[in-house]
């Protein structure tokens, strides 16, 4: 048990170190940041001053050390484009992305599990089959097309919901939230559906196939034979035992939600970290790109680690060493 945990943690740290190296190499070798920042009209003094200011005149190992030292403290340098500290810009925009990701995650999990159970129980029903067919189309549609489709339907044609931005936000401490105003909540609807739809169908299909598997097993028949009500059988006995793979997928999809937020945020001009990243790529703003890469790696690696450890905690067969597990 302990050796497993230690091994997994060491592995994660190694991955992060490698990603850190990639991020630093981007800093050091991609383009000439001074070129990017100053544009056409400039003097040699301007160039030299900026070079010193950004620390680009120092030797490679010093820059590398400085980068690592800074990254650990959450200091990723100054954005080439905005001239402000990257950490400040990201912190300012993080609430928008996190709120969007959380709402669409909750939407995906709740609706995904509910529809999964429904389509499994009414396996041959008309509604269940309809849901399954629609989900197939949903999976093949690229995310940005879903977003545009929703905008067309609910903003352009029906005029019910806003098509861009966050609406009014309320500041609580350093956190700006759109959850407390009416326009803020309205603005959340379409982006959350766009972002969560793919994960929702994924969870739904997984829950359905797992449920079908479980419902065939003997203990379900015994539970029915004992005269338990359908609801108890479905939710207390069957659903509970489908949760191990479902939790794994949910965990791994959490990372994807953050990553795919880039696309959703661009479609809806949502002022989050993803939109910041896309703009950084367009303008080759390396510090922002590197910081985003580091941030998202920490998140992905962390989620992977937690999922692996959770797996261990949930499934009793994996506990207590390999010998028992095979028995």
């Amino acid at each position, binding site marked *: 048990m302990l050796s497993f945990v230690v091994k997994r943690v060491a592995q994660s740290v190694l*991955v992060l170190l*490698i*990603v850190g190296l990639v991020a630093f190499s*981007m800093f050091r*070798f*991609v*383009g000439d940041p001074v*070129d990017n920042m100053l544009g056409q009209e400039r003097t040699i003094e301007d160039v030299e001053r900026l070079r010193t200011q950004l620390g680009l005149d120092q030797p490679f190992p010093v820059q590398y050390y400085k980068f690592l030292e800074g990254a650990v403290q959450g200091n990723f340098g100054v954005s080439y484009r905005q001239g402000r500290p990257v950490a400040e810009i990201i912190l300012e925009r993080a609430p928008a992305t996190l709120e969007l990701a959380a709402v669409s995650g909750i939407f995906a999990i709740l609706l995904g599990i509910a529809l999964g159970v429904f389509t499994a129980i009414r396996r041959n029903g008309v509604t269940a089959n309809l849901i399954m067919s629609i989900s197939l189309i949903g999976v*093949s*549609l*690229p*995310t*940005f*097309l879903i977003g*545009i489709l929703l*905008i*067309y339907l609910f903003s*352009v044609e029906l005029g019910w919901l806003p*098509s861009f931005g966050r609406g009014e936000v309320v500041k609580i401490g350093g956190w700006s939230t759109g959850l407390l105003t009416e326009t803020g909540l309205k603005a959340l609807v379409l982006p959350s559906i766009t972002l969560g739809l793919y994960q929702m169908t994924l969870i739904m299909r997984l829950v359905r196939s797992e449920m079908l598997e479980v419902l065939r097993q003997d203990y379900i028949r015994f539970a029915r034979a004992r005269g338990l009500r359908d609801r108890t059988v479905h939710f207390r006995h069957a659903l509970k035992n489908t949760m191990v793979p479902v939790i794994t997928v949910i965990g791994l999809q959490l*990372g*994807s939600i953050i*990553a*795919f937020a*880039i*696309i959703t945020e*661009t*479609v809806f001009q949502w002022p989050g970290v993803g939109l910041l*990243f*896309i703009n*950084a*790529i*367009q303008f*080759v703003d*390396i510090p922002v*790109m590197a910081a985003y*890469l580091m941030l*998202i*790696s920490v998140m*992905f*690696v962390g989620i*992977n680690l937690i999922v692996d450890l959770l797996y261990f905690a949930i499934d009793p067969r994996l506990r207590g060493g390999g010998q028992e597990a095979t028995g």
Partner: protein
Amino acid sequence: MSDAPLTSKPPSRLARWLDSDFFYAFKRSPVAVVSASVVLLLILSAVFAPLIAPTNPFDPASLNLMNGFSAPMKPNAFTGDTFLLGTDDQGRDVFSTILFGMRISLFVGVSAVLFAMVLGILLGLIAGYAGGWTETIIMRVADIQLTFPSILVAMLIFGVAKGVTPVEYRDQMAIWVLILAIGLSDWVQFARVVRGATLVEKRKDYVQAARLIGRGPGAIMLRHILPNVLSPVLVIATISLALAIIAEATLSFLGVGAPPTQPSLGTLIRIGQGFLFSGEWWILFFPAMTLLALALSVNLLGDWLRDALNPKLR
């Protein structure tokens, strides 16, 4: 020569292929036939775009600004010209831009998959055949890359490559950078499958025999093992193509892909989105539908191929 020949000629390759189990299964599946026809139709119209397209959307001389915003199938109010799928703000025929855009989408998609395939096959063969440290390093890199969604990896590679190319070449190089980015984000699948198959194949007698007669490792990998691991590669390549087309469209839509001077379907959708609120729906709708048809039919074909080539499902 009027008599029938005494010895029948061996059937041609085409005849043998038409007689195969594979083609029989293909004929019997309506989904496969329909999606293959759609893919074929789209590919042909992309290849012959200069012949089919009524106008050349990239020739400024042929454009007439007065033709801007013509609705599909309705004569333009000023010039009286009629366009099958309407025109955009600059009077470009939407049908023609779709044909040329599909060319770029397909070119990027196919090239990216080919690039990923060659890279993945080579690394997979080397990892599986050589084993040891080489294998550990290659597969670890693959594992790490697999932790991140490929679209994110492609974006990062695109950003870095864009930073490396000088400003004045960026638009020209964008297509190649796109191919590189999508290709590099997608090699892992190929490498994993090829490595797995190579591990099985290298223990077989024919590989031992080839080694005994003194063939080098390169020749054994490429001439002996490679042909025997190709059929799963074909399936992954088809599914990868659908993903690559969508990835290209997504990147171009986000503005980090094909430039407006060489618009792909994604770029066209990006442009069309700007007219969504002013009522010119056709500038967005038709490119989007084309992308959908292309991605969906390639996807369905890949699914069918996976089942057809899987011996367990026969």
